[in-house]
């Protein structure tokens, strides 16, 4: 009996001391207030969501933490849907998503009012694997027909019409798409839906759509890239970094101005110049105006609550968000994404300044 009591009292004392310690830690953090970087934190902030912009989050966190050693940022990925859900349940401190919330869900976030901060733009390629065809041009109508299995051979007249003078083989087409729900699917189908005025595209737009049974699904951008790479005759939509990593060939796609443009950092950036931004900084970036715009350019946002109740954490989040839309933008071209246009960058900075730290 006595030993038990001893163990019990020991446990209690250690609990008390550990509580005290953490209180001291909090106090220390409170004392270290102010803008000076050396006096920040120590604090950990967590985010999750979009896998599309995960490469950016990784390089941004890495280089941000060099200047801010006391702020630890974790980014969990998991997909845009998870990012929105986690953020709205306040499981995470910030969330990232390739698509805004649906209107009815937006008002239900637990932390109240929040900001959409645009972070980057990225090209979604239409990658293919056809021997002997190194340059391919496709219009939205043709892509729609291919992905709806209305065209089943590479030498179909519709493809030939987009590619005068190119010798196309009679290979069967294998269509590869995402098997997991995905922001990339949503942007790709949105492009087909908008640019064909829903006439040629019947599957609508969404994170999962009703693909024909004789198509194949791959998990993640890399999963689709893997199918395209390993299957002769395959075609699939893959984001530019993954397409390049798997050294896939990709098509030039006809844009709103009628020009065939290949996906690249520059053409995605050009698309950024042609978008119309709403007041809450959301926008549609597919089928953007401009001669040099790549038409399947997808956006990605990070979300942050306006009212930050934890001072240390609030300051850290604000610093990280500021970093993402200023110095962090310089890292973007090296990972094959496109930085925000200057005007949008300024709007993003102004919006981050609205954050109230209490």
């Amino acid at each position: 009996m006595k030993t038990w009591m001893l163990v019990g009292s020991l446990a209690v004392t250690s609990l008390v001391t550990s509580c005290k310690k953490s209180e001291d830690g909090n106090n220390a953090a409170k004392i270290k207030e102010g803008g000076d970087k050396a006096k920040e934190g120590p604090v950990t902030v967590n985010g999750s969501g979009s896998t599309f912009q995960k490469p950016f989050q990784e390089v941004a966190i890495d280089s941000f933490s060099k200047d801010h050693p006391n702020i630890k940022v974790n980014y969990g990925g998991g997909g845009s849907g998870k990012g929105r859900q986690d953020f709205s349940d306040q499981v995470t401190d910030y969330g990232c998503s390739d698509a805004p919330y649906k209107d009815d869900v937006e008002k239900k976030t637990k932390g109240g009012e929040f900001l959409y901060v645009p972070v980057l733009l990225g090209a979604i390629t239409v990658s293919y694997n056809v021997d002997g065809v190194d340059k391919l041009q496709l219009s939205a109508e043709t892509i729609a027909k291919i992905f709806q299995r209305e065209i089943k051979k590479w030498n179909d007249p519709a493809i030939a019409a987009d590619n005068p003078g190119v010798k196309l083989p009679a290979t069967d087409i294998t269509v590869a798409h995402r098997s997991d729900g995905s922001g990339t699917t949503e942007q790709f189908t949105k492009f087909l839906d908008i640019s064909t005025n829903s006439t040629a595209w019947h599957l609508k737009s969404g994170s999962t759509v009703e693909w024909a049974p004789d198509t194949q699904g791959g998990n993640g951008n890399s999963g689709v890239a893997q199918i395209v790479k390993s299957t002769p005759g395959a075609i699939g939509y893959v984001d530019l970094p993954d397409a390049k990593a798997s050294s896939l060939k990709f098509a030039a796609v006809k844009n709103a101005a009628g020009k065939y443009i290949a996906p690249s950092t520059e053409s995605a950036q050009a698309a950024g110049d042609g978008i119309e931004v709403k007041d809450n900084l959301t926008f549609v970036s597919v089928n953007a105006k401009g001669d040099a715009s790549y038409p399947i350019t997808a956006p990605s946002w990070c979300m942050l609550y306006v009212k930050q109740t934890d001072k240390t954490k609030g300051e850290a989040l604000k610093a990280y968000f500021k970093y993402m839309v200023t110095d962090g933008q310089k890292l973007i071209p090296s990972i094959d994404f496109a930085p925000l246009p200057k005007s949008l960058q300024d709007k993003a900075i102004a919006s981050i300044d609205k954050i109230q730290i209490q």
Partner: protein
Amino acid sequence: MAETPHVDLSGSRDTADRAFNGLVIAAATLVLLILGMIAVTMTQRASSVFGKMGFEFFTSKRWAPPDGQFGGLSFIWGTVYTSAIAIAIAVPVSLSVALFITQIAPRRLKMPLVYVLDLLAVVPSVVFGLWGVLVLAQPIQVVYTHIHNVVGGIPILGSIFGDTPQGRSFMTAGIILAIMITPIITSLAREVIETTPTPEKEAAYALGATRWEMIRGSIIPHSKGGIVGAVMLGLGRAMGETIAAALVIGASVGQISINVFSSGNSMPAVIANEWGEADDMHKSGLIALAVVLFVITIVVNVIASAIVRRSMARSRGART
């Protein structure tokens, strides 16, 4: 006076006994309770889709979450079909290996073989899946095309081994699942076969039987029940396998085809693939699939263990 220590002793033993009883009963009930709670919460969360789709959930193959249409038939088909392929491949292999180990292999070879098989059983399924999709899927497409070219003209066989073979297909998933369930079936079958009483085997030899005739006449009739049970346990594993199947099956939605070379999808695979981005109704549909899978695997496992238990009892009876 003499009674006092006796009472004390039984008293303290009583408490210990009761505590121990309580503990094991609690542990046992906990298992049932957890199973029950899983069943209840899953059915509850699936109810919105079951309510909306009704029986159509089992008869429609149209799975269109954006339209609120949830027909699970193609996934049920994919699960059943890939498991059937897996069983068709794994059973002959497993039985041959089990017979080899018990009847033919020299003692020196027996132990390492058993060891390697048991090792195969603990390899995580994602390893098999990744191997399947990265190593197997591409070259095997050539093999599939050859098979199709050879038997394509024959009725029935021609449609089973149909055209436009895909590397990621029912067949590839079946092969991967077969590799995964072979160790399970083998080790159970081996144990059942080893219970065959020596006198029965010797009697067969005494009558001038060859080894094959002895296996057919003594071992097979004796261990039939246990082997069937082993196969069904393997079947249960094959049906529930998630990641490996998700990687190699091709993830086509709505595909119901007897062509083993076409891409498809199975219930666990679609749950793993679509859960991350699913909204509430979509999640409910996926949980509904999980409920169906849950019920099927429980039924298969219950039947399997009943068969195994009965045959074990019978062989023990035969021995004494």
